[in-house]
């Protein structure tokens, strides 16, 4: 028979289901929650409850939203005719935090990963094509992850958008600011050379 109370054991069990949290970490978090004031612990519980009850995907761009449309789609000050395509809402957040982009988004909710059995039908690509076909879109920026699966996803989407009178661009890639040329990987250097631009 366990020496801990049933509620504490249940809390530890639930916490240890979270990614990156093992049994020991779950126990530490549970003891922390037992130590902090009741209001603080219940605020965390309420936040978890609210996010599960209220948050859904935006009907237009599939970002996280609490209404039918997300805050970005509802913001009239943003550039409406440029759509940046990302794999996940967390990629959108990263781009927003960069402060360098003020257009609209489209979240794919994944990537085409044939080796995992994930095809284009599992993503929101059809909805993106519909958005572009409805007009008023000047440019689509592919901001999928810079790896083989991300590139494949971007290429598939750009093939789908061919002939729709829209500029298709992708994020630049190559050497990072502050790095040293002679120590840069030759493949990354090759990317930088092939994607050079006028000075």
């Amino acid at each position, binding site marked *: 028979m366990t020496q801990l109370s049933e509620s504490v054991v249940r809390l530890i069990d639930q916490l240890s289901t979270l*990614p*990156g949290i093992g049994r020991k970490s779950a126990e530490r978090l549970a003891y922390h929650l037992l130590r902090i004031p009741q209001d603080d612990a219940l605020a965390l519980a309420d936040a978890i409850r609210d996010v599960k009850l209220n948050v859904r995907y935006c009907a237009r761009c599939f970002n996280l939203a609490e209404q039918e449309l997300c805050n970005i789609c509802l913001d009239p000050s943003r550039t409406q005719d440029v759509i940046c395509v990302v794999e996940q809402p967390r990629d959108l957040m990263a781009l927003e935090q960069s402060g360098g982009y003020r257009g609209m988004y489209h979240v794919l909710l994944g990537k085409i990963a*044939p*080796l*995992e*059995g994930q*095809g284009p039908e599992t993503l929101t690509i059809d909805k993106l094509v519909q958005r572009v076909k409805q007009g008023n879109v000047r440019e689509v920026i592919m901001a999928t992850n*810079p*790896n*083989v*699966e991300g*590139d*494949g996803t*971007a*290429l*598939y989407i750009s*093939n789908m958008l061919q002939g729709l009178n829209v500029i298709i661009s992708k994020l630049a890639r190559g050497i990072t600011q502050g790095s040293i040329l002679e120590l840069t*990987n*030759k*493949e*990354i250097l090759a990317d930088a050379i092939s994607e050079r631009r006028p000075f």
Partner: protein
Amino acid sequence: MAAEKTLAIVLRVTEFSETSCVVTLFTQDFGKLSALAKGARRPKSPFEAALDVLSVCRVVFLQKSGDSLHLLTEAKLERRFRAGARNLESLYAAYYVVELLGRMTDHLDPHPELFRLAVSTIVELDSAIGEKHELHTTISILLMRFQMQMLSMLGQAPGLHACVECNANLEETIDKKRVAFGLNSGGILCAKCKRNDRRIISLSLSALQGLADAMGTNFGINDAAVRKLPLGEMRGLLDWYITHLLGIKPTILKFL
């Protein structure tokens, strides 16, 4: 726990935690293995951009005993697969190569020749160019050559020169310029033996010759005679045969 160095093709990358991932590699000297790459997802990871599917890299890993994951300590990118940004057919064909490597080989069972064949196939798929039809033909040839040579190296090559059950001459297996290929028997069958195999595929003589040639080194993408072969029929048979061997249809086939 010795540190081992080898060349490797990245077959699969799976997220393990916020900063680490598990990679499945097909290595030149140790065959297939899975290893934990700690910190691989950090911005300044020691693995740079090496751990991407289809990349060829030079790795250092600590070999663990038993069922434990090996520990990857270094990975230096040697060659990255770039065709994924240019044409999807090359990309999906290369995915098929790594899926077959993953499914057809066992952990820590080295096949250095198969490793070299896989790298050269991936490199050729990466550099394949041409109009849609031309490219499709080139990719079919590369895939078939890889499949036949891989099967041969793994001791699973189909019997194409005589009845695989009774060893009757090839001439005795021909019926109206076609031969019967028995999936269960793993090769061509004479009229008498084919009655015992419930999974028979009829194959033209030119497809049969083409499959036999694909095991040799002269099965080149620029050879006009090779490009005129019934490549669709040959690929169809090979895909059936490999599906039969694996007991499961490779995931990538529906994309090809």
